[in-house]
């Protein structure tokens, strides 16, 4: 869990998230994604989960790392433990040291009420998948957040390119700010939109939603189909290729990926 770090997630410096990405920050995003994947896989393997199943959940690394990079020092992250990269990005402790509940938006709203009550300018960010939206509690909690203009950012991972039910996203009333990320495999896109959402919330303008759309093979709801061969492209491979095209030396990328893997493998519960 979550009362968050005193250092910027991506840069490791105490000056808060950077406005633009360059050089080291990009490689740090890559490292965080790889560390998140390797640590998550390691945790699930230690828990006895089959490697084939454990390895099937991809693209959360990009969403988690990007969302974590959008937060400022002192901001709250309330996310299920499966967003390992987000938790590592916020330096919140060991793998598994996170929320486990499937429906965290009421708790996030409660934290946001507390933040406002203290007169703080902190932002509360929560990461969910779209299953969490299929409840009345989602609508109720979001309606309260909207009515009270709470500093809440909800990053929602979706399989489909459009909200299946606009009412689910509206939260009632005028509704929160909606900032869609077209590609959930791109950590920079997630970070950019999550940062815009956080600035909106921090300015007292109410909650913001950032649906992140995962590219899936048509007809295959990959996020739920964990028993089969993954159908979603690998965000780490995609991002590593992008860095190489941006002239980051291949050897540096290989070293980053390998050291992250080794760091996770060395972890003992």
């Amino acid at each position, binding site marked *: *869990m*979550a*009362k968050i770090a005193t250092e910027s997630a991506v840069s490791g410096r105490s000056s808060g998230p950077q406005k633009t990405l360059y050089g080291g920050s990009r490689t740090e995003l890559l490292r965080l994604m790889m560390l998140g994947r390797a640590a998550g896989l390691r945790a699930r393997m230690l828990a006895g989960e089959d490697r084939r199943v454990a390895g099937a959940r991809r693209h959360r690394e990009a969403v988690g790392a990007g969302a974590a990079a959008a937060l400022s020092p002192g901001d709250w992250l*309330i996310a299920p433990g499966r967003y390992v990269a987000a938790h590592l990005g916020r330096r919140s*402790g060991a793998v598994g*040291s996170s*929320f*486990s*509940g*499937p*429906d*965290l*938006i*009421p*708790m*996030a*709203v*409660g*934290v*946001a*009420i*507390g*933040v406002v*009550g*203290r007169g703080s300018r902190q932002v509360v960010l929560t990461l969910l998948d779209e299953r969490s939206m299929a409840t*009345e*509690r989602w609508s*109720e*909690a979001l*309606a*309260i957040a909207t009515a009270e203009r709470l500093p809440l950012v909800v990053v929602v991972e979706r399989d489909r390119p459009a909200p299946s039910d606009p009412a689910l996203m509206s939260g009632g009333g005028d509704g929160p700010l909606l900032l869609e990320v077209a590609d959930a495999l791109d950590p920079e896109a997630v970070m950019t939109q999550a940062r815009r959402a956080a600035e909106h919330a921090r300015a007292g303008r109410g909650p913001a939603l950032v649906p992140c759309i995962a590219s899936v093979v048509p007809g295959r709801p990959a996020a739920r189909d964990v028993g089969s061969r993954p159908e979603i492209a690998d965000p780490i491979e995609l991002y590593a290729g992008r860095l190489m095209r941006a002239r980051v030396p291949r050897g540096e990328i290989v070293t980053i990926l390998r050291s992250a893997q080794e760091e996770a493998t060395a972890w003992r519960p």
Partner: protein
Amino acid sequence: METVSVAQITHRDAIAEALRAEMTRDPGVIVVSDDSPGSPVCDGLVQFFGAERVLDFDRARQTAVGIASGMALEGRRVVCEVSAADLPSHGLEHLDEAARLHEQEGVPVPIVARVLCGPTSEGWPVDRDGPERWLLPIRGLRVVSPASAADAKGLMVGAIRDPGPVCVLEHTQLYGDVGAVPEGDYTLPIGEAGIVHDGERMTVIAHGAAVAAAVDAATDLDAGVEVVDLRTLAPLDSEAIVASIARTGKALLVEETAATSAVARAVMAAIWEGAFEHLDAPLRRVGLAAAAVESGGLAKARVNAVKEGCDELLSY
């Protein structure tokens, strides 16, 4: 010897007094109320402490416990209310999450959930299984069940001061019962049972609304029946249970709900583990829900059900 002044007040007023006292003592205490006629305990709080500290969650019926948990994470001490029947869909998982965070990660989550138990809307005298069946399996969650007005105050104060999540089972049929309640700062430790009727021949173990029936039965029988009021259901005071059975050799579990309740199972496990060698007779269980339904809710039938159980064990 210090004298403690007491007031004769109702169970409901004792809870309200605890809330008022703790809100006065600690400005971080927040009460979440739906401000409805079914929430008499919170009457008048908003006028005294203001809307910032008595939040109206009328529009958050399904999320009140979750929101309260979040506020507790943010450093407030939050008291919220949920009916036992609504608990599975209105916040059980958030209590579970709060308990896990506190127990496993050492995060303070000072939330008190007042769980209203009592006659169901369908007309049954009580929920025949009780909310304990959902609450007791949650590791790290503390659950208290006051039986008297004094305990209602003392345990509520103890719950509010606890750094972790605590569920207070409020048996609404006790709300009107009058009892002597210590005035001023009065708290009871969570996790400690109490002996409310002395005896040496057998032990009756009860909690909440069942305690009165157990005490009445023990008094009527006048046959050396000791009554242990559990007060806290989780963590169970196994030491007190074992110590009593070590003295008496016989045990009867009296449950407000069903004889097969989660509390009865927990108590039986504690007895098997710690008092097996002290037992001179088999364990017996009585569920008052069945007696209440058969008799139309007559108090006498509840007492008689306990007496029958006692007679059986005393003559063993």
